[in-house]
């Protein structure tokens, strides 16, 4: 099954909406609650990264019999050094965004911890793609 949501950069009042919609669907599909909890953390962080750092993006989720595959693509500034971005504490978030409580530099490591596979590709000044997989038989 395939699900898609648009994500608007800069619109913090809508941040988390797409992740919440997917959570509802996964609950309806009776996916293991432990898997849902991990997937929700990963989706939310990837969604907020588009809101906080990019201009516009899309969340795609494919639910299979053995796994959930998630892809978030955006048009945005891209990430120059992905390895560095993955480091806990590294953040380029603006002062405004930090005042809201974002910008701890923990989002990508939250994603890493809560997924079985993570693959990030990015082009500076073009955009970023974050692909994540969670296996249903691995809690």
């Amino acid at each position, binding site marked *: 099954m395939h699900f898609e949501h648009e994500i608007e950069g800069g619109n913090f009042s809508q941040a*988390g909406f797409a992740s919440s919609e997917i959570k509802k669907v996964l609950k309806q599909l009776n996916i293991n609650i432990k898997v849902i909890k991990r997937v929700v953390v990963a989706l939310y962080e990837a969604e*907020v990264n588009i809101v906080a750092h990019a201009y516009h993006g899309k969340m795609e989720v494919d639910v299979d019999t053995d796994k959930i595959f998630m892809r978030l693509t955006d048009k945005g500034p891209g990430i120059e050094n992905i390895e560095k971005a993955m480091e806990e504490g590294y953040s380029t978030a603006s002062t405004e965004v930090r005042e*809201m409580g974002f910008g701890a530099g923990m989002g990508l490591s939250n994603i890493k911890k809560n997924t079985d596979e993570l693959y990030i590709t990015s082009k500076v000044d073009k955009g970023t793609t974050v692909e994540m997989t969670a296996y249903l038989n691995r809690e």
Partner: protein
Amino acid sequence: MMKVKDIIDDLGLTVFSGKSGLERELTGGYVCDLLSDVMGNAQTGQTWITLQTHRNVMAIASLKDLAAIILVKDNKPEEDTLKQSEEEGIPILGTAEDTFTIAGKLFNLLKNQQ
């Protein structure tokens, strides 16, 4: 098991919204104002003590199935935060006290219940 409603009188909390969630079970507390720390570490059923008042706080509480939110130092939830709290039935509570004090009181309350 304690419920959200059980801490209101003892801690002298204001109920801003989400009254339908006062029966939610409360397993513990979590304290942080960094949203991704809460996203990564808070557990289902905990009460989240924070000074953040914007809507993303509710988004996180809902995604993480937290029991309730306590806003410290007389902070008030923003309009859309209130609205989502009502919709989701996750209470937003308030106190005049600072985070250290209210967290200490909640900790003792929970400890004495066990």
